[in-house]
């Protein structure tokens, strides 16, 4: 069973053992609107926490997706290149961007749980 963490940049980190699936939250996809382009990183690439890792673009704007924690990319979601609107349909399900093998699990301690994130979204509205 995966444990899901959230960042103040509206990304989620769904951790299952040593591997975490990263994507943008339901709130983020709604704020962005119609997604027209997604660029995911290459498998094998290593990120430090906070690195630019992926790109998501709506009709109007481009946004960076950061690596919320450090790790090596072990899998990417190939469906998003051909079907970027999957992010609008199922942001926190089928539309994960990439999976990281975590290099420092203690970094997860600095992230929010679902309740804290919901509160964060409410307060920043």
């Amino acid at each position, binding site marked *: 069973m995966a444990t899901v963490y959230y960042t103040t940049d509206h990304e989620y980190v769904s951790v299952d053992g040593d591997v975490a699936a990263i994507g943008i939250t339901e709130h983020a996809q709604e704020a962005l*609107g119609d997604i027209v*382009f997604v660029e995911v990183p290459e498998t094998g690439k290593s990120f430090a926490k906070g690195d630019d890792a992926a*790109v998501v673009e*709506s*009709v*109007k704007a481009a*946004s*960076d997706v950061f690596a919320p924690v450090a790790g090596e990319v072990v899998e990417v979601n190939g469906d998003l290149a051909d079907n970027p609107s999957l992010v609008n349909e199922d942001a926190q399900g089928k539309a994960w961007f990439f999976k990281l093998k975590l290099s420092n699990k203690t970094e997860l301690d600095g992230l929010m749980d679902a309740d804290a994130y919901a509160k964060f979204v409410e307060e920043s509205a």
Partner: protein
Amino acid sequence: MSSNSSSENGASAAADLLRTPLFDLHVELGAKMVPFAGYDMPVQYPLGVMKEHLWTRDKAGLFDVSHMGQCLLVGASGVAHEIERMVPADIAALKDGRMRYSQLLNDAGGIRDDLMISRIGENDGREWYFLVVNGACKVADFAHIKQSIGPAFELQLLDDQALLALQGPAAVTVLEQMMPGARELAFMSIKLFETKDFGEVWVSRSGYTGEDGFELSVKADRAAALAKALLAHDDVAMIGLGARDSLRLEAGLCLYGHDLDETTSPVEGNLVWSIQKRRREEGGFPGATRIQAELRDGPARRLIGIQPQGRAPAREGAAILNEAGDEIGVVTSGGFGPTVQAPVAMGYVTLAHAKAGTPLQLVVRGKPMPAKVIKLPFVPHNYFRKPKA
């Protein structure tokens, strides 16, 4: 995740933003409001940019463009000549009820703003012209016009007038029901309609989407009633600035402050069609020396349509390279075209690379992406052409 564009997530909290007469309606309809040209404006409604765009191409979209600057230029005679001292279009040739697109030029032939100029006609022994300029430029434009015209002419600001645009293939059917005779209007013509419910409405067959449609200048206190009456029709939906931008970009229409500015000339901006023959030959507008030289010898750079080859949109500011990798220009408008279902862009390149079909590269996030020059527009114009009798 962080947004690189300020237009999408600009906070609309600033207290000094102006509101159009339709502000309450936008909020009621659930619009996302953003600062634009000093106004709190709707960037999109719950339908979303993509569906709003497609709705307009398929049915009819209603736009609030009341932030734009409307004014009348009046004089006993010679008003056309007075306007021609500021713009390169042939205004003297305009018949009553006809309009032209043109540009207010600076002394170097650069574009201060672009605008619509309509000849209303003669009334009270005076000639009346109706001008619509961009919202972000209107204060400067009005000051410039006041300073440029002689003492015999008068500039009347229409601060109390809202401006709505009804655009799309269904626009004519919808408007004809409310204002019988609207369907007879030729493209780029304007007429006053006296209506029971909305007072006097100046209706022009024009717009900024590439579709058939109308712009409606109505008294501010009647604007919400007019908008609601139009929205009552099943084919009409309110459309925000986001879709307005993607519609005009697909139609290859320039956005001032992006595709045109004080440094670009109308020749560079691919607007030679808006400078009629007499003016090309006679000059007599600001910067005529430069513009006539560019007409004769070709400009150093020119605005082009760009088709990126992949799915990644190239945004404003992206560098344009030739095949060898040398920088030859810059993207001035770029995004995703919902109708063409592909990224679309416009930008300036050196004249040698402006020919349709020329391969280019666009630098997106540091990486060169293949693209090519295409003939504008991306989506064919669907303007109304009156059948010959």
